[in-house]
């Protein structure tokens, strides 16, 4: 072969490699997930999506990840667990995403686990309670700060505060909806009751679409419990709080695991009915000083949320949805690759600096220390939203690092 031909072929080869390489580099870095954009938890799902979109824009403004633009590929899982497997199969097989994260909530994270385990994907998840307890998957991560034993970490605030009361409570009533999250939360509550030596005088669950909750609350009252622990989702949280106020529940402490009171819709609808209730929160203006970057993020989020008709406060999922993407961002930058094994390894071994503070994962992928705040609502008057945007409606009772006050008991006398 003459020299010219050799040079020609070499040049062609080099050109093609260069073109392919640059084409690869232009390919966006796709992150895929299902999210509840319709259905009972859609208010939260949409709020989370907005945060993730803000993150993608922030990252792309700084040049993307590994030189590639970040693109979010998502589908509506309708808050319906049965859609989840097909969504994730589609993301991995058809859309060929580089990375996956979960949707919102225990109910939609669990169905995705078998697929993740089959494909050895690193799976960062958003607010699922104790999902990994049955799977024991070593590439599962959870951004919710429930701690290494989530069901216990979730409930320890309520029970620790209860047992610090004097005289000590003797009895507890446990109630929740027939669904994945409440069932797991109640498991944790049962264990806490056992450890604290409390007698469980009522332990029943109700169908999530119950219309009238007053028979349930009356049945609970008939057992005269010192404590009432409720684990519920937004519609039944509202129904139970209403029923509790209508029946005039008398107990020393009520609340514990209600999803829904963290965001605007239920706060404005229930207003003063929330007074006196003890519950958990992810963020509240009372602790703003401890999370310096959160204010700017929340301002950005609140502006977009108002336009899209989604939770205008953003105190629950949005900071954590953003933080979970920050963890992934830092892991990808540090390892310089999208290799699922390397990422999982890095995430297990390192601490991350995020908008919600320092994040470190335990062996099972949960947070190494529990950090969900236990709070008590007070002084809520009327149904306007602005009172919630500044400190004054929420007393943080635990953990100690964030505490702003002590609990007011009994419940029926603390409703102001």
């Amino acid at each position, binding site marked *: 072969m003459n020299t010219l031909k050799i040079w020609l072929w070499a040049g062609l080869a080099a050109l093609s490699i260069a073109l392919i390489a640059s084409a690869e580099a232009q390919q966006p870095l796709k992150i895929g997930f299902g999210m509840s*954009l319709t259905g009972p938890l*859609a208010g939260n*799902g949409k709020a989370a999506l907005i945060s993730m979109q803000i993150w993608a824009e922030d990252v792309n403004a700084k040049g993307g990840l590994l030189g590639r633009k970040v693109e979010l590929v998502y589908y509506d899982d309708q808050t319906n667990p049965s859609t989840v497997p097909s969504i994730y199969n589609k993301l991995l097989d058809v859309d060929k995403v580089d990375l996956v994260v979960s949707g919102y909530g225990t109910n939609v994270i669990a169905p995705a686990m078998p697929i993740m385990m089959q494909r050895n994907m690193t799976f960062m998840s958003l607010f699922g309670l104790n999902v990994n307890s049955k799977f024991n998957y070593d590439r599962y991560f959870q951004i919710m700060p429930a701690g290494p034993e989530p069901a216990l970490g979730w409930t320890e605030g309520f029970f620790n505060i209860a047992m610090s009361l004097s005289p000590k409570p003797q009895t507890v009533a446990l109630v929740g909806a027939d669904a994945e999250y409440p069932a797991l939360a109640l498991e944790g509550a049962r264990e806490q009751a056992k450890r604290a030596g409390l007698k469980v005088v009522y332990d029943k669950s*109700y169908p999530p*679409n119950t*219309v009238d909750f007053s028979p349930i609350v*009356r*049945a609970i009252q*008939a057992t005269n419990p010192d404590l009432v622990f409720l684990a519920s989702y937004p519609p039944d949280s509202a129904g139970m709080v209403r029923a509790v106020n209508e029946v005039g529940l008398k107990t020393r402490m009520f609340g514990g695991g209600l999803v829904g009171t963290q965001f605007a819709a239920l706060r404005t*609808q229930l207003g003063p009915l929330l007074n006196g209730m003890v519950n958990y929160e992810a963020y509240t203006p009372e602790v703003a000083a401890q999370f310096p970057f959160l204010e700017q993020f929340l301002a950005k989020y609140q502006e977009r949320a108002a336009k899209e008709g989604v939770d205008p406060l953003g105190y629950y999922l949005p900071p954590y949805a953003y933080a979970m993407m920050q963890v992934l961002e830092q892991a990808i930058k540090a390892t310089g690759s999208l290799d699922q094994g390397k990422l999982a390894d890095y995430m297990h071994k390192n601490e991350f600096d995020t908008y919600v503070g320092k994040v470190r994962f335990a062996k099972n992928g949960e947070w190494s220390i529990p950090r969900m705040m236990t709070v008590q609502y007070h002084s809520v008057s009327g149904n306007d939203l602005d009172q919630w945007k500044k400190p004054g409606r929420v007393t943080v009772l635990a953990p100690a690092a964030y505490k702003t006050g002590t609990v007011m008991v009994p419940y029926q006398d603390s409703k102001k």
Partner: protein
Amino acid sequence: MEFPTALVLNAIVAGLLLGGFYAAVSVGISISFGMLDVVNIAHPAFIIVGSYIAYIVHEWIGVDPIVVSIAVSPLFFALGMLLYRIYYLCFERRGQESLRGLAFFFGILFITEVVLLLVFGVDYRLVETSYSSTTLRLGVVDFPLRLVVPFVVSMAMVVGLQVFLARTFFGRAVLAVAQDQLALRLMGINPIRVKELAFALSIATAGVAGAFLIVIQPVQPAIGREYIGLVFAVCVLGGMGSIGGTLLGAFVLGLAESFTSTFFGPSWAPAISFGILLAALAFRPSGLLGR
């Protein structure tokens, strides 16, 4: 198992109040499915539309949602007429009402849900009326006005419908069309017109029931589907074509749910309710007051 008096009395009252609400959401199906044989599976969707309309007008000018729904019921009536016209022309006239008609109503159910979703978004809506947080106490029994007011209006609506169907000429024409359309034609009455107006009436009741719903519990576009099973169960239990039966069926299911929730465990409530339905149908296949 203990049955303290206070608890039993409260369970009865709660069951009856709930039953009143169930009657309101089901009476429309009793007319459309029970009497006209139209499987209007989209009925709950119209209830939700009624909820949202009551919600917006209440937010806008502060008028009580139930008053709003009664005021806009002519709109629902007109919508019902239009819907029946389309259903008749496309399906019933050609004898294809069973499968294709059902698919049509399923389609309406989903389209309505998605339109509500697009217009209002996914968040739960609830109204706070002047009586939402008031509870009357008579001795040991509680009467939360949030349930009492819808109950009273619902009873007026259901009893009014029963009187209308039994006593007026048009009402009897509706009962007649359920029995023998040909005979009705021979009497010089257009059965299609009768069915159209009856169906419109059923959709109007859905609009009013929607206001009850949003006063009682938070509403979002997808919850209509949770009521499909209930409304047909109440209608079938009570007996097809009987408004009184629907009322009785609603009370039975309301009481069953209330007693099960209070004394045995709320998880069992749906099982007991549908168990009662099965038992009733086993012994009385035409329903409690069915013909």
